[in-house]
Structures are given as structure tokens and as C-alpha cells.
């Protein structure tokens, strides 16, 4: 595939400030792995460096992934509206109670994206202004995109009270 543009490595000022980051590339995409404690600082610095668009916040549950040692991989996809560059920032988290500081103060648009990650994976975003479920009902207890949640068979129908037509 020819289309991925050659991506620059991490900006020098970032590389100087955050030493020892694990930078890798795949199909022309630069990826940075950062410890959870430094994630907020790095993301805020990257925004100041020109990666002004937060494209997506998502998560991968590596429970059944071959060779994985950490359970959750948070993914922040950044882009710059001016230069068309992209950068992926990854943060690994573990059970129990995975949590990370929110980036809503850096990008207000992260609010719903983080709500969805909380809803689907149960990762708590500390300092989030309104961390409610986004897609599932409020009363739902599980986090359905976790790998230990089955595709079907738990919690969907039979846990909810059945209303007949007369009662409804």
C-alpha cells in the first residue's frame, strides 16, 4: 500500500522532555507508548506542539491476545489540522480498577469518547466532569467490550423484567 504519508518521528522537544518513550512505527504510523502517570502531560504537550485534533480515544482489551502482558491498551489518535500528520499514543492499564487522568481539560471533545470507553471497558477517567454511560442503559452493570464478556448469553434479555402487553 503506497498511500500512508511518511510520518515524522516524535517532535524533538517532546522526545527531550519525555525520555525513554517506546516509539515504534507500523505501515507509516508512528506510535508512542507512555506510562499512565505521564500520559496527560505528554498529550497536553503534543497538543501544544501542533497535534491539535483528538481524532479518537478508544481501548483494546488484550485479555486473550497472544504475547500481551498488560490487560488494557488505551489508544489516543491525534492529528494536526494544519499539516496532516498523525500520531498514536498508547497507554497500558491493568486490573483492578484501571484509571487514568482525563484529557477533557486539553480537548473538550474527549468528553463523550471517554464516556464510551468507560461504558464499554470500565476504565475510569479521573477528573472527568460527567462520567456516565454513553450507550448502555444506566442500570447496566457490565462493560460489554471486555473480552470476558460473551457475545451473547448474559444480561441482555433475561435480566430485565418481562412486561406483557396487558401490564405495559
Amino acid at each position: 500500500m503506497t498511500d500512508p504519508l511518511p510520518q515524522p518521528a516524535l517532535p524533538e522537544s517532546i522526545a527531550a522532555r519525555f525520555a525513554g518513550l517506546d516509539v515504534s512505527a507500523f505501515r507509516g504510523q508512528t506510535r508512542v507508548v507512555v506510562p499512565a502517570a505521564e500520559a496527560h502531560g505528554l498529550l497536553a504537550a503534543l497538543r501544544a506542539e501542533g497535534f491539535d485534533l483528538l481524532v479518537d480515544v478508544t481501548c483494546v482489551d488484550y485479555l486473550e491476545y497472544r504475547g500481551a502482558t498488560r490487560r488494557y491498551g488505551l489508544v489516543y489518535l491525534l492529528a494536526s489540522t494544519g499539516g496532516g500528520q498523525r500520531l498514536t499514543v498508547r497507554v497500558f492499564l491493568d486490573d483492578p480498577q484501571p484509571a487514568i487522568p482525563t484529557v477533557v481539560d486539553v480537548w473538550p471533545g474527549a468528553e463523550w469518547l471517554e464516556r464510551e470507553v468507560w461504558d464499554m471497558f470500565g476504565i475510569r477517567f479521573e477528573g472527568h466532569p460527567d462520567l456516565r454511560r454513553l450507550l448502555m442503559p444506566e442500570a447496566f452493570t457490565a462493560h460489554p467490550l471486555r473480552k470476558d464478556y460473551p457475545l451473547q448469553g448474559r444480561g441482555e434479555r433475561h435480566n430485565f423484567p418481562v412486561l406483557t402487553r396487558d401490564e405495559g
Partner: protein
Amino acid sequence: MSIAPSDHDTRRPADAREEDYLWTLNFGPQHPATHTTLRLVLKLEGERVVDAMPEMGYLHSGFEKIGEHLSYNQYVTVTDRMNYISPMANNVAWHHAVERLMGIELTPRCKVIRTIVAELARISDHLLCNGAVGLDTGAFTFFLYAFYQREVIYDIFETLCGARFTNSYTRVGGVSQDFTPLVVEKIRTFLRTFPKTLDDMERLLTRNRIFVDRTKGVGVLSREEAIAHGATGPVARASGVTRDLRKDEPYLAYADYDFQVCCASAGDCYARYLVRMQEMRESLRILNAAIENLPAGEVNVGIDERVARPSKWQVYSTIEGTISHFELSMANRGFEAPHEESYAAIEAPNGELGFYVVGDGTENAYRARCRPPSVLHFALFPRLIRGHTLSDVVAVLGSLNIIAAELDR
């Protein structure tokens, strides 16, 4: 006898607050003007919207979970159902991301064919979006003009792949059907007739006093807000963000065509309408250039790649074709994605539509995250509607083009 002035205010309890006298209006999830199932809880002071609380999830069907249990080719049927206004664009986006993960280079013909269907999808999406804005603000004729042309595009897609609505057209490394002369002829006819309708539509609405009054200055989104809130596509471009993935990171065959990125600076509903109208004209330029320069040759990648089914001729005449066809049909063979993860996005009609695909060495994705543009646009809604009247809700909602199926997945 004089009527005493209303002493309504004096009868309020001393500890009453101003917000105790606001109306709460439940807008949706079943409301004709939301077009899909989404809910808005509006706080009204008279007819003025003080605040809005958008709520979603009514159409949540677990598409991302399903994506972990279907193969890369099967999942395309589910992407049809995400943004059902332009399913072709979703198909192209999904397999674009999968091919990025696998590192497959498409044939030139396939690239152009996918470009053509993606641009047709953009036109049909913009037609419906602008048509619905017109419909919600009282311009019913405009909507019918738009929908008639959508029907023509449906016909093209039906001739192309047999399905009008849920096309499931792309495959890993290719497409399900090659263009036939009839499809090319139908697209040419559409390209000949559509500009006239587009002119008619512009004449109907663009300078229509009622429509301009209803949309100009309503739902203003500044450039800074658009970037900070992750807006993409026509919504961001109407606010002056000059970002278009077709130009910024040219994928498929877009680098070969001459077209312009349509932007506006006002950031209101009217600007979003204008950007979409103009983008249809630019899409026509791309389509005209693409359909007249359709490369010859194979549409799917070759047998050596072992991802796309070989043609019947190859299956019956070559041993490689037979083996490849057999292996791709076997449940325990098929093809394997690398043990890696990547993100790829296209400029869908609604904005940046991308998929973050994690491969785990099997033929199913380990994770198939869809980055839907609608979610970030819907989150903007309270910001855009505050201070406007109740009747502006439908204008703002329509101009953001919120598709609940894409919102909830």
C-alpha cells in the same frame, strides 16, 4: 374597572430559583424531525432553549463486539448498517483500514472504482442531509428534488452489486463486482443530468428568504471549538477548518484528480448547507474525471496475495487459481492478518470515518473500533443550540447530519 397587573412573580416562593420556572421538553427518541432514534432533553424558557442534554444509545447494537466475531469480509455487511445514508462509504472505509493493516496494494482499477462509489455515496449523503434540512425548515419540494436524484444513485448501485441500500460492495483486496458497461453508462447519464437538478435545487433554496432566515446565524460553531471538539468533515469545513483527508493524506486515487476543498467561515447552519452543496459539485468533477479514465485490467488483487477470490477463468484454468479459491473457501484456511494494529480513515460524507483494527493472526479482527464522526458532532449540539428557539433545534440537528445508527453502532 381596571385589571390588576399580573402578580405572577410576587407569588413565587422566596427561595424559588429562576430555573424552577423552566420547561423541560423531551424531544425524541421517536420524533419525526430527529429522523432517527436519538433523544434531546431541552430546557426551555418560553420558546428559547436554555440548555439541551443529548442522549443516545437507543440504537446500540454492539457492532464493535460483532466485529470481533466476524471475518474481515463478513463484517462489511455490518458496516452497511452504520451510516445507512451512504453505506458505500462505510464499506470503502472498513476495507481501507483492513488493507492498511494487511499491507495490501490495490489494483489501479479497483482504486478508481472505489473512488467512484465513495463519491457517489457522498453525493447521495449530501442530497439527503441538505434535503432533510430543507424539509425540516419547510421546503418540501427541495427534499423531493434531492430524493429523486438519490433514487438514481440507488439504481446505479443496484445495477452494480444487486443491492440498493445495503451494498456490501467491497472485499479485502477488491470489490464484489467489476463495473459493467451498463453501470458506466448509468453513471455517465447521472453525471449528465444531475448538474441541472443541482442548479434547480440551488435556485430553490440557496437564496430563499425563509430558508436563509431560518439557518443563517443559527448554530454557530467557531473554528477553535470545531477543532477542540474533534469536528471533521463538512461541519468542520463550514467553520473554516481546511482539513480534508482526500487532500491531506490522499488515499485511493484522489491524488490523480483535480478538485477543491470546500470551506466556509461562518460556521452556521447555512454555511454547512453551502459547503455540502458545493462539495457535490466537486464530487461531480472527480466522478467525471474518474469515469472517463477508468483503468483497464484486473479489479481484484492477484492470486499471489491470497486474499481475493480468483476469477472463474483462473479457477478452472490454472492450478494456482484452483488452490487459492479452495483455500479461501475453507473454514480453517482463509487469510491471516498480521499480529499488529493500525488505524486508517477516509473522508466519509459526514467527516472522518476511520477504523482502528487490531489483528491477531486469525481471519477475524481482535478489535474493530469504528471512529464515527456523528458522535463528536452530536456532543456539540448543546453548544450550538443554547440561546436559539425551539424551531431552530431541527435546523441545527439536520445540518449536523446525525445518523443514529452510526452514533450508536
